């Protein structure tokens, strides 16, 4: 698939380490458009939208943020923790706004499985349908997220 210059520039910027160490694409050889389209297809197959997922992520982050870094129950089988560190990151799509370096971790009590996301992850899923490239530190598999949260 051909990419317009803006998308090519975005792709370069997502692979660069200017905003976060290691960038947002990991070692994924696909273009950003392919990553987004493939994940959108997966969500469609699962009958969920990125907006629904992002809304649930925000809800969990908000609930857990009040617990000062401790684990709190967010359902009968799951608990969540919010971890805050210094600073904020802008979105690589280069619009206004910055996202605190806050990481939410959700853990299933039965299996111990975890999934985690940053505030920037939530925003990028919500606004851009971007779950990051495979191999990046904060890549989230849509199916795993759906299984854990919905």
């Amino acid at each position, binding site marked *: 698939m051909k990419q317009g210059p803006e998308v090519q520039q975005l792709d370069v910027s997502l692979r660069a380490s200017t905003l976060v160490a290691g960038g947002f694409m990991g070692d994924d050889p696909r273009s950003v458009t392919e990553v987004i389209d493939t994940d959108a297809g997966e969500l469609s197959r699962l009958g969920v939208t990125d907006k629904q997922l992002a809304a649930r992520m925000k809800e969990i982050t908000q609930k857990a943020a009040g617990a000062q870094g401790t684990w709190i129950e967010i359902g009968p089988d799951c608990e969540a923790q919010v971890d805050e560190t210094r*600073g904020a990151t802008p979105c690589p799509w280069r619009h206004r706004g910055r996202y605190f370096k806050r990481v939410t971790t959700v853990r299933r009590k039965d299996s111990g499985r975890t999934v985690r996301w940053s505030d920037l992850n939530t925003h990028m899923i919500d606004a851009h349908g971007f779950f990051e490239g495979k191999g990046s530190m904060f890549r989230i598999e849509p199916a795993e997220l759906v299984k854990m949260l919905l």
Partner: protein
Amino acid sequence: MIGETVISVLIVSSIGAALAAVLVVSEHFIANYGECKISINEERDLTVTGGGNLLSLLTTEKIFIPSACGGRGTCGLCKLKVLDGAGTILPTEEPYLSKEERAANVRLSCQIKVKNDLRIQIPKELLSIREYVTRCTKIEDLTHDIKLFRLQLVEPATMDYIPGQYVQLLTPAYDKSPLEVYRAYSIASDPADKGIIDLIIRLVPNGICTTYCFNYLKEGDEVKINGPYGEFRLSTTDAPVVFIAGGSGMAPIKCILHDMKNTGNRREGVYFFGANVVQEMFHLDLMRQFEAELPSFRFVPVVAKPAEGETWDGQTGLVTQAVQRGVKNGALCEAYLCGSPGMIDASIKVLQDLGVTNDRIFYDKFA
């Protein structure tokens, strides 16, 4: 037919190439701003080559304006007054400037491209900030994701700072980050030794500077820092002190406690230190030592919920609950907080309920 198509493609390509060449040549001449004069506080003039942003040009001239984002316009820290020559406020600056600041010509120095002469005002205290070449002499694991980095000052060999202040550490370009960036860290060391700067740093997943410090920086390496910065410091009153800080937020409190010991400060004080599990506690022996050496100081470590198999005979629950239980004379106290925004916000509420007035609550928020 094919011939015509090829000719058309060639013509369009040639026009495109010619336009690109014109752009490159124009850029060379039009974007050449020549020498520009930056007048600072009407006292000193700098002559710089135009074209760069104000923050980086000042840094090149060894004038250090605080900035946590490396000039990307995302931290909003590098504010200074630009009286003339900066043009209108850019959309990238708007979110960080209040109405009052706009009226006072405050701008984000990283967003201002120097294209002509400028008249700027820099707070006097920032003009005394210097760059220090140091050598990392010790890296110590404090918890699974917090380390202490000891920097021996080389040139200049000592730094005068007020306990509670911070420095900026320069992360050089490395394979996870193509650009140099600065990040701010509170000084944790004993101010009695002016040749040592200890930093307590927590690993930020994907963080450019912390990834460098944790995975690339080695003992013996040269490290550049600049400073000192910041207004966080112990007041000179006699009011009882409540310290609240968890994790790497201990850094400025530790520095202040060293100073209280060195200066024979007899103020009543209590330090509430919160962690999730016992494994996240550190410097407990040092804090017990402060308890023994400071006449009216108590250390209250609080573990939210000890992990399975952990032994803990101290307080449990949230650190704010321990504060609620432990502070009986809130109306008389001053409070000093350092940590995450969530912890600070929760602590402020609790302190207010205990009668501590807002003008007596001082904090260093991680944001």
